[in-house]
């Protein structure tokens, strides 16, 4: 597929669609974080249940700043939601940075398959 057709397929310039796409994606991510914080927040995984039956709990060797996706000292779900949104942005920036590190100039081969 030619370079021209890549741009035409989106019906807009890549830069414009990237910004629009990123913003739309972040809104979707915020909705997902809201669902995970306010509605589906309780986590009882199989592994936790089996470990509990044995009478021991997993622990964290290194102290994490936000254990269980919460800000220590704040019980408010709204704070957890904001932490979730900030975390999503952090993941986005980290992935962007790694992607830049691995990328090739515009118009090169694209992501390699297996």
């Amino acid at each position, binding site marked *: 597929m030619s370079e021209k057709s*890549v*741009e035409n*397929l*989106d019906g807009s310039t890549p830069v414009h669609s*990237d910004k629009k*796409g*990123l913003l739309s*994606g*972040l809104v*979707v*991510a915020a909705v*997902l*974080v809201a*669902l*995970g*914080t306010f509605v*589906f927040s309780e*986590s*009882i*995984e*199989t*592994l936790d*249940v*089996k*470990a509990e039956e*044995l009478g*021991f*709990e*997993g*622990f*964290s*060797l*290194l102290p*994490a*700043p936000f254990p*269980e*996706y919460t800000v220590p000292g704040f019980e408010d779900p709204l704070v957890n939601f904001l932490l979730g949104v900030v*975390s999503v*942005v*952090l*993941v*986005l920036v*980290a*992935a*962007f940075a790694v*992607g*830049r590190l*691995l*990328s*090739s*100039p*515009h*118009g*090169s*081969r*694209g*992501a*390699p*398959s*297996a």
Partner: protein
Amino acid sequence: MHIPDGFLSLPIIAFTYVLAISFLAISFRKVKGNVDERLIPLMALLTALFFAVQMINYPIIGGTTAHLLGAPALGILLGPWLGSISMTIILVLQCFLFADGGVTALGANMLNMAIIGVMVPYAFYSFFSKKGGKKAIGIGIFIGAFLGDVLGAVAAGLELGLSAPVFQYGVSIAVPAMGIHHSVIGLAEGFVTLAVVYSTIKIRPSILSLNRGLSVMIPSTDGVRNE
């Protein structure tokens, strides 16, 4: 499926770390300089979205909950090597910022979710896409996503079972427990992966030309054609 600290024996920790880091090094080598820079925003966005997806814990069987992995969609949309790197970013940040998965178990978690969880779905997708036709590709995506989740969980069960006496359940209990529960999650992962792959292609059709692995899905009059 995130294994915390204290569940794995030292040999299993060492073995899984060596395997995961070797694979990560191969992935970096494979994609370094080969990723079209126009794919990067989509890679970053998908990574962030699946991080968010993993925060949603939905109820399954026996009073337990589960969350989607997102690894199959990352592997299919970004390619296996970049998909693995993308999933690794999620796991590393979850481990060090949120204590979701232990630092001693990071190698095992990478092996289960960023390697098996990405590679198995991609392999099935790739195999079925060679058969041609929209239906075959859809079946490949669904089966791949299902098996990616289940086999990742079975691997976690094996790592835990082989860690006895640290984790006191042996393989005969740990593997079925993880596998059965994750077969339910696998079904959900299959449907979600199908939806994510097709909707991403619909929203951003340029991904078809940016990722060579997806070139078989270039829309034609039949919807999808095999090249």
